[in-house]
């Protein structure tokens, strides 16, 4: 690939990172709220990117893993007084376990069938949250989730320290996922996306690689859900509904699938759009709907994808099979 040196490619992300680190003490509490929501949703969007961008699998049930993480917080923090470490561990393990079960079912299908089976699985998660009153509080959800009490010099009950806490979670997830997608394992996922047959011929255990990718994506989304519940102080079935799964899908598509940072950017844009537009007009659904359609019509490869294409000239279309 010709084009700008890697250093220049890092310039924009690094600039954004500096802003994310340095600007928040000077912004209004409202902007801080949006930033916190963005970095948390970015975690979930990046985890879905592992599936959609690197494995080429569009899931309509990703909210389920986020929901498992969120409900772990809701239930363990309010009823059992569990600490952050315990809850994070339980939330992520449960999300991994759920993905391990769902993956067994979902990975039997591809394409539109995968989409549909994950839709049904996502509805299973939503249905349990909605109806299993004794565990989940049903439609009312669980409120009064306390912020984590960690031995830090700052109280996470306040907006700014919690923002940095969430940002740390985002950077850790980004780092972890970056390592994964750049590892030989990550390359094998892209290889599978491009041609399962070829990878199988090369001796890869295709199903196992897909399965591991699927489970990791679920676990990371679970961690995002844990942060989300702590941020909101509230969990409800809305965290698991189909609309949430589709929204995360939009974040990934809008930002640029297969780029990790793109979906994080997409998360920021959608959070911003949803909140800002609703301040100025009641017609935010209309605008959000237009964003869905506009993304597909004008930026099918996403923002980061389009920028890279413009910056690098006609790049070799996403790695065609060579033979």
């Amino acid at each position, binding site marked *: 690939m010709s084009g700008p040196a890697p250093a220049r490619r890092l310039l924009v992300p690094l600039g954004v990172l500096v802003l994310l680190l340095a600007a928040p003490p000077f912004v209004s509490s409202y902007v801080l709220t949006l930033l916190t929501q963005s970095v948390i949703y970015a975690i979930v969007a990046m985890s879905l990117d592992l599936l*959609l961008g690197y494995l080429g699998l569009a899931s309509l049930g990703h909210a389920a893993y986020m929901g498992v993480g969120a409900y772990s917080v809701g239930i363990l923090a309010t009823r059992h007084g569990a600490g952050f470490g315990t809850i994070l561990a339980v939330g992520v393990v449960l999300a991994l376990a759920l993905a391990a079960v769902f993956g*067994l079912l979902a990975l039997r*299908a591809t394409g539109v069938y995968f989409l549909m089976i994950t*839709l*049904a*699985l996502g509805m*299973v998660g939503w249905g349990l949250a909605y109806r299993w009153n*004794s565990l989940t509080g049903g439609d009312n959800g669980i409120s009064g989730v306390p912020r984590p009490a960690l031995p830090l010099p700052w109280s996470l009950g306040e907006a700014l320290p919690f923002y940095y806490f969430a940002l740390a979670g985002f950077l850790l997830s980004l780092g972890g996922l970056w390592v994964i997608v750049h590892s030989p394992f990550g390359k094998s996922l892209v290889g599978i996306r491009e041609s399962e047959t070829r990878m199988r011929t090369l001796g890869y255990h295709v199903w196992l690689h897909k399965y591991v990718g699927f489970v990791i994506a679920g676990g990371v989304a679970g961690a995002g859900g844990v942060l989300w519940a702590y941020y909101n102080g509230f969990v409800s079935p809305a965290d698991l509904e189909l609309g949430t799964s589709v929204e995360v*899908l939009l974040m990934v598509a809008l930002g640029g699938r297969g780029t990790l940072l793109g979906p994080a950017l997409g998360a920021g844009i959608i959070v911003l759009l949803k909140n800002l537009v609703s301040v100025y007009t009641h017609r935010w659904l209309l605008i959000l709907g237009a964003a869905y359609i506009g993304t597909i019509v004008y930026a099918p490869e996403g923002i980061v994808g389009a920028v890279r294409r413009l910056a690098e000239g006609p790049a070799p279309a996403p790695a065609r099979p060579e033979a």
Partner: protein
Amino acid sequence: MDFWISQVFNGVSYGALLFLLAGGLTLIFGMMHIVNMTHGSYFLLGGYVGLTVIWKTGSFPLAILVAAVAIAVLGVVQWRLFLHRLAGEELGQVLTTVGFALIFQDLALVIWGGEPYTIPAPAALTGAFNTGALYFPVYRVFMIGVAAVVALILWFVLERTRVGAMMRATVDDAEMAGGVGIDVRRISMSVFALGALLAAGAGVVAGAFVGVYPGADFEILPYAFVVVIVGGMGSLRGALIGSLLVGLLDNFGKALFPEFSYFTLFAPMAVILAVRPTGLFGRA
């Protein structure tokens, strides 16, 4: 025993409603391979248009007719302008059609407000048949009747007419169908219109049963999809059996295991799909 009979009856009547919605969706799915997340919106908008017609004229049949035709036109416009370009791009279809669903949801909110309404059923369809302790609302019987008639008509058109043969050919292999001189584009467009028409009609019928209210679109959409995928995309017989299965599972789940009612519906569906990814009657 009475409990079981009335629950089966309730499940079947809900399944009948689902069939009206899923019958068109399965043809759209099977023929055009379009994942249409706007299908719930046709249902919702159909209900609202029907409501307005009832308010203006008081005629229930006219409400169904006007709603069905208006929404069919809407569906065709949407297909012509956007959807037909997205062949084979599932993600694009999902996001575009969700976008339309959000827009339609918002427009409905602007036009009809956020209040829940009920479409008044004609007097002839109110009341109930009583036999002993059993109680069968006439309207539920009517829904089963409508679904049966629609199923028969669809079956007749698909299996016994020239147009139906063209449609089946297009479902099986659009390219070959085009090769033997079938106007695949026109057939596809008619099927899309038919799907929207049925969904809107179902919306009016449901409006006198569960009401017309914001959010009904995304509430019923997963059901319709589950019916279609379990039955097998493009299979009318599959949609019929899938509707009954989903209607019964939903009803018994809610009656017997209230805390797990959606679980008892969606989990078996997911397992069926895992075993037979193409659905019960679908062809790969």
